[in-house]
């Protein structure tokens, strides 16, 4: 109305329709994709169908009005366009095995797109992308592409891989699903624990990739962490299993410290020294509630226990007020649930806080003397710190130097270099 002329009614209708297409795309494109994969039996077909459906919507909704059930319209349209495309191609070359039968079979069944099956389809998609028959790299790439909807370029950039390499990885993963006849299904009750493990592993890997980059200047690639949390929320909504709750809690509690973890110049700030007023309280509240829920059910495991440890930190008003005894107790449980040298190391750090540096140093030396964690920079950094506190300066220097030689991450390097400098004083 700025120029005084009334806006044409037709323009508004067109704009409104286009806005709706955009809104539905942003909120539902991955849901619709998940259902199309089930109806069409193929990832690539579903991708094409999705694209065709939204293109058709942009053309038709301004003309014919926005349909009462946009999602159903898009699924139906996508499916029909895919069938057309397949039949056209069939005249030129033989069809892949039984594809036509599957398309005709699911026909006009309205159950194809009711609320219940939409949720099921999203689970089918997540479980298929994380199938153990795919390599871990492929699982991650496929999940980010098909469940999260990231472009191959975005994924390649996030993982510091070349675009074509990533694209090939996804092509091969889809081919594996097709050729190994991996079904598009939610695992049965007997298979569920192992299959859920695989999904949680992928999501946590994505989160960690975003939480601390494996090399290079920036300590956090927050996009990936955000994506991981989003997918995990979806998973928890669809399948509130204890470990799924535990992993969501763990990621929220870790992420709650994002703003306090690095200084403005990108330097690493340890948990003890963080400004707790910068911690995300909403995430902490949510995380604590999830930990309680997970712990009160049976069948919680390592993720829940790690989340419980993070919860003890989150609940402490200050570093000095941290309940280290409880943390050691939780590490005892974690060491039984998932024994590993890294868990032992973290437990040793907690024991130090409860009993003093000498006790911690004994534990860390025991781990290192077994040959475990010899190439893990954090083990040497922890040892160095304890030696420093016990006044064993020469040993502290040696351990800081070993730690430095084992990490490429800029903020961590700077931190270790600073510690070495301080030793000279």
């Amino acid at each position, binding site marked *: 109305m700025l120029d005084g002329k009334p806006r044409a009614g037709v323009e508004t209708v067109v704009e409104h329709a286009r806005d709706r297409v955009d809104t539905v795309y942003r909120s539902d494109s991955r849901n619709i994709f998940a259902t199309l994969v089930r109806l069409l039996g193929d990832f690539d077909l579903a991708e094409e169908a999705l694209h065709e459906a939204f293109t058709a919507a942009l053309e038709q909704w301004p003309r014919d009005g926005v349909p009462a059930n946009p999602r159903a319209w898009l699924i139906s349209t996508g499916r029909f366009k895919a069938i057309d495309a397949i039949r056209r191609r069939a005249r030129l070359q033989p069809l892949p095995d039984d594809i036509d039968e599957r398309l005709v079979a699911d026909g006009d069944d309205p159950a194809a797109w009711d609320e219940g099956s939409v949720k099921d389809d999203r689970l089918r998609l997540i479980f298929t992308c994380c199938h153990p028959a795919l390599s871990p790299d492929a699982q991650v790439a496929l999940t980010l592409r098909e469940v999260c909807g990231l472009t191959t370029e975005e994924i390649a950039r996030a993982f510091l891989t070349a675009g074509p390499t990533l694209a090939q990885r996804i092509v091969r993963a889809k081919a594996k699903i097709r050729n*190994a*006849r991996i*079904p598009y*299904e939610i695992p049965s009750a007997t298979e569920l624990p192992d299959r859920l493990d695989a999904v949680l592993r992928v999501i946590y890997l994505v989160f960690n990739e975003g939480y601390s980059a494996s090399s290079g200047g920036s300590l956090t690639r927050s996009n990936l962490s955000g994506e991981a949390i989003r997918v995990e929320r979806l998973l928890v909504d669809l399948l509130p299993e204890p470990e799924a709750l535990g992993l969501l809690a763990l990621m929220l509690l870790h992420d709650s410290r994002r703003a306090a973890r690095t200084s403005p110049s990108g330097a690493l700030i340890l948990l003890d020294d963080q400004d707790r007023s910068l911690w995300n309280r909403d995430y902490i509240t949510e995380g604590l509630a999830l930990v309680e829920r997970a712990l009160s059910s049976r069948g919680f495991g390592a993720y829940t226990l790690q989340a419980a440890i993070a919860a003890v930190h989150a609940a402490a008003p200050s570093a000095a007020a941290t309940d280290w005894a409880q943390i050691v107790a939780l590490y005892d449980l974690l060491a039984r649930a998932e024994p590993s040298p890294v868990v032992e190391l973290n437990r040793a750090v907690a024991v130090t806080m409860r009993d003093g540096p000498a006790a911690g140093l004994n534990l860390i030396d025991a781990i290192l003397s077994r040959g475990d964690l010899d190439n893990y920079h954090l083990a040497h950094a922890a040892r160095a710190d304890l030696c420093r506190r016990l006044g064993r300066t020469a040993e502290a220097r040696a351990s800081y130097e070993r730690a430095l030689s084992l990490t490429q991450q800029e903020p961590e390097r700077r931190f270790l270099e600073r510690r070495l400098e301080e030793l000279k004083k």
Partner: protein
Amino acid sequence: MKFMLLVHHNEAAFDKLGETTQREMLAESVELTHRLHAHGQYLSASPLQPSSTATIVRVRDGKNLVTDGPFIETREQIAGYFLIEAKDGDDAIAIATRVPGARIGTVEVRPLREIPGLPNV
């Protein structure tokens, strides 16, 4: 859908298990074939003689090259196979987990490439 389950194990380790255990595993495998057969999933199966019985055959430039086997020296050797009918990849994997050889070695699950023109037996 047809799948080939290729069972591999380390022959030296298998020998060390002793005759009784070996016979028990064999009996378990036979029992598995019967259960598969009852579900219409059994096509064929057999243990193989050890890799020391292998002969390698190649034909190059019209010449027959026959040598002592096995094909390649590996940590695990092919010990047997199951040829099965399964609903899908997950079904084949589930059957593979029931193969006794999976507990001491490795089972490779491969879908068959179904081609036309093979004899109908």
